[in-house]
């Protein structure tokens, strides 16, 4: 492959990402929003959403597409949260309890989702989307008619004079779940960044010493760390985040440790036997099957992990700063859409995704999300357009990513048509 071809293929892969970068810059400039405000909002939304977006990675690698059924994981988490509120357990124990309830529930739901998706191979993306809609019906049945009548609940969470759970549940005040994780410890953003750069550089040197990476790679890593630290040392940029005017950005330490732990989990599991199975199944089910891997079982495991992680992600989301209320019947509805759009913006596709893509995608997607409304009112004098533009972005990104993927694989298919024709002949 020539250098030019390489660049072209890279650009083809990341066209959505570059488009989003350009749009973000444009929107930030046009919207005229205060940079400090944008930065603080972005950080907030990263805290909230990164965990859920990261939960999408494993099914993508296992070849199951974008698991829109993570909404079901979110529902499991909401059942956990509801019970926690019902029993009046607050703070970190409450969050832990909710997470503990989510684990078996999410695993069970994930098992069922996996079983069903195994019956619709090749249609997992649309299947999981519709499964999410279906589950929403079951969720309403549970929350409106079973909770409060068949399963008794305290009167503080049920609708007065009827069965069913209230439309909104408060998480603040005596319920004590609001920012239960976020508020454990805060670190100034700049300090966290410097520490991160330091650790990153140290890790690179360490790996070089252990002869795991080449000298070129180490230098590249060191330069990257130094550049990152350097950029934020420029006074103009530092003032955006250090609060010299506006608000000082602070990182909720534990939330970020959880996000990093999930990143580590995602990359570590890929080095285990199970991870190899995911990869093998994702690349080719036929080959995986031939090499003795139980394809269906592997896929079910991938979905189970994803569902549980999404549930925990929803807990992180619900407790995060600025939410405060639990919209019983709406909180889960857009989870799959936003997370799916975010990871695709980061350059992931239907069959490949990394931690970095998930994080970058979340960053870019939400930077547009924050600025769309103000930018639209600045451009068209109408803020409602911005609202619709957000929805268009979410759906449009997914549509474009799906089309690009289908287009690419059609091209690949054409290249290997002989091979494919043979396989088809064998099948029929």
């Amino acid at each position, binding site marked *: 492959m020539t250098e030019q071809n390489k660049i072209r293929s890279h650009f083809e892969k990341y066209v959505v990402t570059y488009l989003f970068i350009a749009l973000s810059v444009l929107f930030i400039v046009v919207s005229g929003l205060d940079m400090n405000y944008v930065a603080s909002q972005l950080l907030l939304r990263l805290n909230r959403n990164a965990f859920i977006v990261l939960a999408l990675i494993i099914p993508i690698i296992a070849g199951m597409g974008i698991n829109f059924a993570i909404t079901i994981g979110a529902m499991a988490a909401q059942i956990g949260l509801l019970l926690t509120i019902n029993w009046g357990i607050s703070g970190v124990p409450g969050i832990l309890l909710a997470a503990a309830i989510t684990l078996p529930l999410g695993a069970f739901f994930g098992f069922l989702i996996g079983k069903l998706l195994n019956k619709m191979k090749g249609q997992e993306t649309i299947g999981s989307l519709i499964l999410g809609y279906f589950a929403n019906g079951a969720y309403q049945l549970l929350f409106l008619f079973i909770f409060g009548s068949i399963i008794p609940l305290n009167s503080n969470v049920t609708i007065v*004079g009827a069965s069913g759970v209230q439309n909104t549940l408060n998480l603040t005040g005596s319920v004590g779940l609001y920012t239960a994780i976020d508020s454990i410890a805060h670190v100034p953003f700049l300090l966290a960044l410097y520490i991160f750069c330091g650790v990153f550089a140290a890790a690179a040197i360490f790996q070089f010493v252990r002869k795991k990476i080449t000298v070129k790679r180490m230098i590249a890593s060191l330069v990257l760390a130094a550049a990152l630290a350097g950029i934020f040392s420029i006074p103009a940029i530092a003032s955006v985040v250090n609060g010299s005017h506006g608000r000082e950005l602070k990182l909720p330490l534990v939330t970020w440790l959880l996000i990093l732990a999930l990143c580590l989990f995602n990359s570590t599991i890929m080095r285990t036997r199970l991870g190899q199975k995911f990869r093998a199944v994702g690349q080719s089910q036929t080959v995986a099957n031939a090499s003795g891997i139980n394809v269906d079982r592997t896929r079910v495991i991938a979905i189970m992990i994803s569902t549980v992680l999404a549930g925990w992600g929803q807990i992180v989301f619900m407790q995060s700063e600025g939410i405060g209320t639990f919209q019983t019947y*709406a909180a889960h509805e857009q989870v799959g859409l936003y997370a799916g759009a975010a990871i695709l913006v980061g350059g992931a596709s239907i069959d490949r995704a990394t931690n970095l893509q998930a994080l970058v995608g979340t960053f870019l997607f939400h930077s547009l999300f924050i600025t769309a409304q103000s930018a639209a009112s600045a451009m068209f004098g109408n803020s409602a357009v911005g609202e619709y533009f957000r929805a268009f972005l*979410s759906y449009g990104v*997914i549509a474009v990513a799906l089309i690009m993927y289908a287009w690419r694989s059609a091209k690949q298919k054409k290249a290997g048509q002989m091979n494919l024709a043979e396989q088809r002949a064998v099948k029929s």
Partner: protein
Amino acid sequence: MSGKAKEKPTVQSRIVPVVLFILAAALIAASIGGYALQNAGDIQKTLDTMRTNTVLHTASEGLVNSIAQQARADKLAELRKDKNFRKRGLDEVNAICDGAMEEARAAAEALYANPVVKDQAALESAIEAFEAALAEASILSAQEKGVFSDLYVQLVDNISNWTEIAGEGKQDSEILASLAAVASGVNDKANSHLQSSFVRLARDMAAKQQAKEDGELQNQLITLMVGAVADWTEYSGLDQAALWDKLLADVPALADNVRFKDAMLTAAQGYVAAAEKGEAINPPAEADKGADTVSETQADYSYFVPTEALTKEENEKNDAYEALKAQLIAIIPDLGGLSAKLQTTLRESLEKVLWLGDTDFSTRYNAYTAHQSGTESEGAWKLNLASMAKPLLLAGVAVLLLGLVLFFWKPLTTRFGVPRTIIALFFVYLCLLAELYNISVKLMLGNVLERMTMYGVLVLAMMPGIQCGIGLNMGMTIGCISGLLGIVLALQFNMVGFAALLFSCVCGAVISLPLGWGYSKLLNRMKGNEMTISTYVGFSFVSLMCIGWMMLPFDNPKIIWLLSGKGLRVTHSLLGSFAHLLDKLLAFSVFGVKVPTGGLLFLALCCLLIWLFSRSRLGIAMTAAGSNPRFAEASGINVNKMRTVGTVLSTVIAAVGIVIYSQAFGYAQLYTAPRQLGFIAASAILIGGATVSKAKVSHVLIGVFLFEGVLVFGQQIANSVVAGGGLSEVMRIMISNGIILYALTQTGGGRRD
């Protein structure tokens, strides 16, 4: 296949149906016994005696209550004269008054509990005459009817205002549907339903709005809602304070609303005034809802002029009541001395008991038993059996059907498929349940037909897509939006009548042609992934057009936002244009079922055209390309071209479909409203028996009938079974998405690689 099944009918597979048959036979036999008993002379006589007792009991109870209340009021007045009145706490005053009341009640009960009937025959004939008059006159009096119809118009107005403000296109079709059901309920002796469903609607609307961030919109919405509830309670004389309490509990945001506070204050002042008069000193929430506490609010009926027939009915009813009252006074003379207001109350209670006259045995029996003193008569089991005849019969039929379906499971499911069998059985069960809950099946069938004309053409749009091989065309929303564009253009040019309808259809079809063509080109490159892609392309197009509706240069003040002066509104009433034009064409009623002839004819015409098309050379080539592309390619058919034909056809039909949908609905809805239409159409055709690769016209018709039938019946029954609503929506979500999931599982399984 079926022969094979017959060869070895294992004992296990037959034992369940046989047990069910036996059970069904037992139930039906019991029910026949019950019906026979209902007509037996002595049972009828017992029932008549029960009725007489009930009337006497109601009268004496009313008297006792009024005496007790009077005693309480007297005691309060007496205490007030006392200088120390202010020093006593409210609790103490209440306790003293209640004591006096109970004492008076006990005394009165001893006096009137067992009235002595002198002329049994005269009393019974008077009761019968009044019952007959009541049955003839509809339950709502002439005045009330006028108020209710007026109120209904108001409600519809309010609701369409709300939805317009809320900008939630999706919900108001549901709301209007349930309002239509509510309206039929008003004529159907069920005004309490009107109240509960209205409160539910208001609550849901407010709660939905609460989730939105825009505080101003929410405030407007709640203000409108509070206004409507205030009006409603004023007309109906319901306990307003209790209603407010409930609303406040359900929608906490109300507490901050100025108009809500005002209404609360007014209600509270009303109660204070009533308490001052010594009528009810209890706090509003616990106010005694018995016959004696009368709400002070009076509705203004002045604008309503009753018709002659209604006045005549009213007069006959009054005469019959006077005769009955004379009989009752002859037995309990003190009844004559009641105040005018208590007289009215007594009459209302008696009417409530007796209007059951024309209903069935069990309803009457149950109503009368509530008033009997609980003495066990020797024929009690007979009465019980007779009153259970209808539920027993329905249960018997249900069990019999289940047995039959299980018995013929194999042949049925091979012929019709598992989902269609189950849903058809479910539909029949819903009909049985409707009968059990005394819901008018005819009215419901009329609704189903109406909704068939509404959705039929849209569902038909799925067919060419499936036939040409792109599967379920979720992107038919592209066609729907073209059709909506046609409608909005017709409105922009102030067109009316058939011209507007025709223009919308043609314009929509023309716009959808290039869109459908481009869309088909896209799908041709995405073979194997069409459903996923078409879903998201459809979603994206809907969102894109949301911006489009805002930005397009429409300027007719009737269709744009008045406040900002630009952007199309969400909901457009077609009442002045072409609403219900087709449905009302040649419409007639048969056996009480309203038939929207024009709409059905149009649907039939569309079906015929599509059927003819699928018989044509092009149609056959298209179906061949869809069902076996490789074979079609080999026999010289251009598969891509055929797919384009099918996709464009599907898109164009969808454009016409949405115009027909809007005329049947009476409103055109823009913005996010069309987003889910693809899913609705897909589930309907799948329920009809289509698969993602095969579809026929019969699938469309059966599917749309079963799907809409289950929804219409389900909604009514769910509302009667579970107060608070929402169950029917849950059912819709689960059936609609469940059937699509099922269809997907039938295609997949190792398709990848």
